[in-house]
């Protein structure tokens, strides 16, 4: 039996600000992980990544990151991706700053 596929989201950095962004099911780039499209199929993931890579004037460095389903939408799995949803831990800068406003 092959191992079950770990679901993915497509993530990248926005070209202009460098902010972490995620690809949504309706082809928008969102700042919020829980709005990302949770991709459960490997072939579909590759297609979505190709689609993201073609949007060169919007984002930099798209890749597939492991994710899992949560009550409010997809959640990150690895701690690096958790940090990317928030910002640095030494200052409340980045997304956590925006969230506080």
């Amino acid at each position, binding site marked *: 039996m092959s191992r079950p596929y770990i679901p993915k989201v497509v993530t990248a*950095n926005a*070209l*202009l*600000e*460098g*902010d*972490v962004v995620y690809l949504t099911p309706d082809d928008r780039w969102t700042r919020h992980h829980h709005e990302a499209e949770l991709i459960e199929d490997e072939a579909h993931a590759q297609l979505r990544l190709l689609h993201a890579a073609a949007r*060169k*004037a919007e984002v*930099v*460095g798209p890749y597939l990151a492991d994710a899992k389903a949560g009550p409010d939408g997809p959640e990150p*799995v*690895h*701690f*690096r991706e958790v*940090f*990317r949803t928030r*910002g*640095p*831990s*030494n*200052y409340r*800068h*980045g*997304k956590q700053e925006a969230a506080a406003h």
Partner: protein
Amino acid sequence: MYSYTDFDEAFVRTRVAQFSEQVRRRIDGSLTEDEFKPLRLMNGLYLQLHAYMLRVAIPYGTLDSRKMRQLAMIAERWDKGYGHFTTRQNIQFNWPKLGDVPEILSALADVGMHAIQTSGNCVRNVTADHFAGAAADEIEDPRPVAELLRQWSTDHPEFQFLPRKFKIAITGSPNDRAVTKSHDIGLRMVRDADGEPGFEVIVGGGLGRTPMIGRVVRDFLPKADLLPYVEAILGVYNELGRRDNKYKARVKILVHETGLEPLREIIEERFIETRAEFGGQDMALLAEIERAFAPPAFRQAPTVAYDDFYREDPVFRAWADTNLARHRNADYAIVTISLKAHGATPGDATAEQMRVMADLAERYGHDELRISHEQNVILPHVHKADLPAIHAALAQAGLATANVGLISDIIACPGMDYCALATARSIPVAQEIATRFDALDLEHEVGPLKIKISGCINACGHHHVGHIGILGLDRAGVENYQITLGGDGTETAAIGEKTGPGFAYDEIVPAVERIVRAYLEIRSEPSETFLDTLRRVGHAPFKAALYEAEGKQDAA
């Protein structure tokens, strides 16, 4: 202070204009990221985890109040009100927006600064002893040579595409404060039998995934031969260095694989050619540069105010004991301003703090500032009578922490709070160690102890040469910290040795505490430093304290 020539000015302005155009074309979509990336890296612009990062060179760590104020202005106008000073004597801005970068570079150019050759496989910002031109133990100020190297290496047509990045460090003192032995080329000033100054040339040092202590290729190189010799080393490296594997491309691997003796012969052979080619114009240029680095006109005044304060004020005394170093002029002192307030991010300064430091330099410090590789700021020339006023002003700005060289004076790379390559965080580990030892009120009793932390094997935080080194790794999806002991970044350089299995994030601070408590127990007397004790008793008692006491570490 050395000012850039018209040639430099024109070069930097042209580069800013080119890059502005490149940014415009990237934003309008006519350049792809693959095309743009090498261009932005050539101009010091990285993309990190949460944002872009702009790395600005501070050649040989020297700047004046005007430059410092401009950095403050940039931090406020285009960033989040602070900057991060790094181990390579650069400053990094963590939050620039792509569209603002041309303006930032132009503001830097207004004060003779730039971000050129802070990235890429070229000769990087040449670093120097941060006490250069001031230290009591110095033979000669090494910065004119550093400036000569900067001019020679900037845009050098032959050396823009080396096998890998190339870092040169230089010190004019026998006591090595510039970590010369962990650089691709280290230059340490020494005297020959006749008392003439020249350089011990060290090659092939490096940290990263294969740490190596540099080897001496030349015991004594007369100053007049410096540039041709360095060019010979670079020429040989450019030709023979490996380009097939980027992990084996640094000159340290060439030294290791070729062997020091055969490599020395090849370099010396090449040197015969390069020396003939140079024919002395470099020395004329050096003489000109040296004039610009003439020492300031030292003030003559009594120092009783200092002596009185030192006697009466314990807070001032504690600061003076840790943060001052001996100046070549007995009435002067070298002030190290700690950017390591307990619990703060090592190396960060707010715009306001930058302005305070600029003001102090202008008012009391012959308008000179330095950035140290230990991520602190230096006022190299301060008359002792002015120290109480300086201390008071620093205290107001949260800059008077008396901890230079102590356990909370930690070098930490940005780690996973900023860096896209990181495998774990390093900044919060540094913050928590500093906070913990401050709460225990132990650090002055512990004495000199260097902790250095990197967030991945690239070793930007110099962990290999920390007395206690900490390396953050990703072990099966959780942060894990490996400890090394016995590293040393001075003239007695050594690479630290791993103690054993690593520690989880919430276990690393207690682990460090166990090491330190073991040291306090084992040391023969309070004056025996951590490193001396370790060298006397070996690693076993420390490993015992680390692993036997609590036994909570994960299995390797």
